[in-house]
């Protein structure tokens, strides 16, 4: 990304003074290109060189923050087109739109606050509330903004194309650092003034990609979120892809900002699927209307999956996990602490409806067969651990169920732990039938 070491070298003083901590300017340039040094380490770099280097080494998509307290939402700063190229960094913010003249505004915000989904050891919540100036009135908008700010500490987006209305609402809740949506070709001068005044990020809305780029160049403000104006799902995906490709691959600066997308489907189920597509294809913020938790559970899960870092194995905390109302007779299963394995097994163990313990054995997040091959899930490791584990105090039997794929470690575990080993199924989806046959 950015300039090569040689291109940077051309802009340096070439005095080889060594004050930056690296013996030569060329070595320093290489370190800069690799992201291992910062330009401020060089006391003699010229202003022109600094400007050129700063813009060349700036991230392809700007990081933008809004919201306040511990609910600050960070969006943008993405570096790749595909998650497998590196990873996606800042999960899409999921917002619910409410109208400023909605008689049930307070109740709706309560409902948004109340959405909290827990699964596989993770807790998912909505990121915030988008207040729309449906009334067209500045007073109503301000009152609604204040009411929402009073009801929730989540991030807030203010939606209005009327600068007067925006100023009224934004000034009232400036301390919450809302996102202002949106500057358009018709209002951008005044909208930028408002954004500057309240020191809040501003969304810029075009009619299409070209008018968006034009508008971004005109506003002369850097805290931006961008919207091409497209609403039909297939065009949104195209525009989002264009924006991501142009900013990441071609460093096209007008598109180097986080994006926002709005759902249009009126059926809540279709709306959530629409939001899914926007999350998949690069939206930094998605604004929807439904708060149906049955549907949001899936949407949150998808976002969590997509933004999982493919570079590192995901692991759960090693330890003994109870499922159901366990007692001293409960069966004990063991698997690795690779979270995909662990939660799949956990789901199946739970599905047996026999209260059970499941041990997440520390394999540094490797799956069963990989950990076995790597010597991390073998009798010599499990046996001694099991012998001293506090599971001995939790149950009054000494029988442990191991994954069928590593049946070979049975003997060693038994020898080193004094426990009896039952060989479970190879595939965790067979745990249900295994339990029916062997445990009841």
């Amino acid at each position, binding site marked *: 990304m950015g300039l090569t070491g040689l291109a940077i070298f051309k802009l340096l003083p070439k005095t080889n003074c060594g004050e930056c901590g690296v013996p030569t300017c060329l070595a320093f340039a290489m370190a800069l290109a690799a992201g291992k040094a910062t330009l401020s380490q060089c006391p003699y770099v010229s202003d022109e060189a600094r400007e050129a280097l700063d813009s060349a080494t700036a991230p392809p998509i700007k990081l933008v923050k809004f919201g306040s307290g511990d609910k600050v939402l960070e969006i943008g700063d993405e570096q790749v087109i*595909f*998650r*497998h190229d590196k990873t996606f960094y800042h999960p899409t913010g999921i917002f619910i739109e409410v109208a400023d003249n909605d008689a049930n505004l307070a109740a709706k915000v309560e409902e948004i606050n109340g*959405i*909290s*989904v*827990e*699964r*596989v050891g993770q807790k*998912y919540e909505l990121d915030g509330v988008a207040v729309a100036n449906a009334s067209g009135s500045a007073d109503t908008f301000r009152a609604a903004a204040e009411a929402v700010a009073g009801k929730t500490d989540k991030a807030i987006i203010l939606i209005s194309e009327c600068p007067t209305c925006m100023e009224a609402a934004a000034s009232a809740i400036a301390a919450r650092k809302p996102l202002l949506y949106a500057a358009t070709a018709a209002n951008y001068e005044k909208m930028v003034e408002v954004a500057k005044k309240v020191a809040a990020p501003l969304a810029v809305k075009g009619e299409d*990609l*070209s008018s*968006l*780029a*034009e508008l971004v*160049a005109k506003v002369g403000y850097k805290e931006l979120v961008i919207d091409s104006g497209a609403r*039909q*799902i*297939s*065009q949104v*995906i*195209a525009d989002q*892809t*264009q924006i991501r*490709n*142009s900013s990441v*691959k*071609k460093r*096209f600066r*007008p598109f180097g900002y986080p994006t926002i997308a709005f759902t249009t489907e009126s059926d809540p*189920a*279709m709306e*959530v*699927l*629409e939001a*899914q*597509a926007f999350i*998949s*294809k690069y939206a930094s913020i998605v604004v929807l209307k439904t708060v*149906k*938790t*049955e*549907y949001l*559970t*899936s*949407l949150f*899960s*998808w976002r*969590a*999956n*997509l933004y*999982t870092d*493919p570079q590192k194995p995901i692991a759960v905390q090693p330890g003994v996990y109870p499922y159901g109302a366990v007692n001293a007779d409960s069966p004990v299963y063991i698997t690795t602490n690779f979270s*995909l394995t662990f*939660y*799949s097994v956990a*789901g199946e163990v*739970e*599905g047996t409806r026999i209260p059970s313990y499941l041990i997440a054995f520390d394999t540094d997040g490797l799956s069963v067969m990989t950990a076995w091959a790597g010597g991390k899930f073998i009798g010599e490791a499990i046996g001694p651990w099991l012998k001293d584990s506090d599971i001995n105090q939790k149950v009054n039997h000494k029988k442990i169920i191991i994954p069928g794929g590593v049946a070979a470690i049975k003997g060693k575990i038994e020898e080193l732990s004094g426990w009896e080993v039952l060989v479970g199924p190879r595939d965790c*989806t067979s745990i249900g039938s295994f339990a029916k046959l062997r445990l009841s």
Partner: protein
Amino acid sequence: MPVEIYKDKFTGKGQEVILGATKEQGGTRAYTVKMGGSSTLPFLFYEGEIPNRPVIAMEVWDIKPEWNPCFEQYYGDVWNDPVAWAKKAEEYGAEVIYLRLQGADPELENSKSPEECAKLVKDVLAATGAPLIVEGPGQPDKDNDVLQAVAEAAAGENIALGVAEKDNYRGIAAAAMMGRHCIIGRSPVDINILKQLNIMITEMGVPIDKVINDPMTSSLGYGIEYSYSTMERARWGALIGDKMMTPPVICLAGPEAWSKKEPNAVGEDAGPGWGDQRDRGIMWEAMTAAALLQAGGDLVLMRHPEAVKLVKKQIDALMVPNKY
């Protein structure tokens, strides 16, 4: 300031595969489905050709499966009648019937014989108009016997036989070749094995336009991102000219999604904030399918009729050509 539209320049494209055969083509299907063949990434019409929309297949079992009770209202009267079930699947919007011959599992007490399976396939073909996919019981020897009989019984119908894996593909490939059927090759979420298996299958003589890839898609919430990235990489590979990554991709969204806790749990088993099972389950499956479509799924296997409706509707919207 007109923006310069960014387009990736691809030299390759996905392989188009046709499933089913009409009377003119030597079969008895009411229609055929075409899958794959894109010269761009999913739904980017401005960049290349997307000749075919993703296709929905629905599951039909030859024995009563242990499914969530919520399926009772849809399939309750056909659990023990796969032929009637297949007809019902068509009514629910299946464009392809996916027949799972689980009853031929040799470990079952009344394990079905290859002849019984072949007869069932004939009966299903006689009763329906949709193209057919047949999956064996998953035990290598039995798979070979069953699928060979099925391939013969369905001669001319251009069905798809599955599932071939790296260590068990010869028998199924031979059956597919003999009956001029398609074959589904399964690789364990691994792009290299996907490619290797395609090489092995085609080296046996199965033409590449008869191969469908199952990269072992996982459920939402349980590793779907691995499948997603594998599929994105396979599509990219096809587009940059790797012939052995071009086959269309089948995603087993329904069975994968419903094997997890989230769509099934009721009452106390449901986690905090999960809400009611019915709508949660439908969305869990629909979202699994919809997410995989974004990574390039060409054929999606589904289970719940309501989830099918949602995904079809989304495909309609995604297939509106975008342009610049």
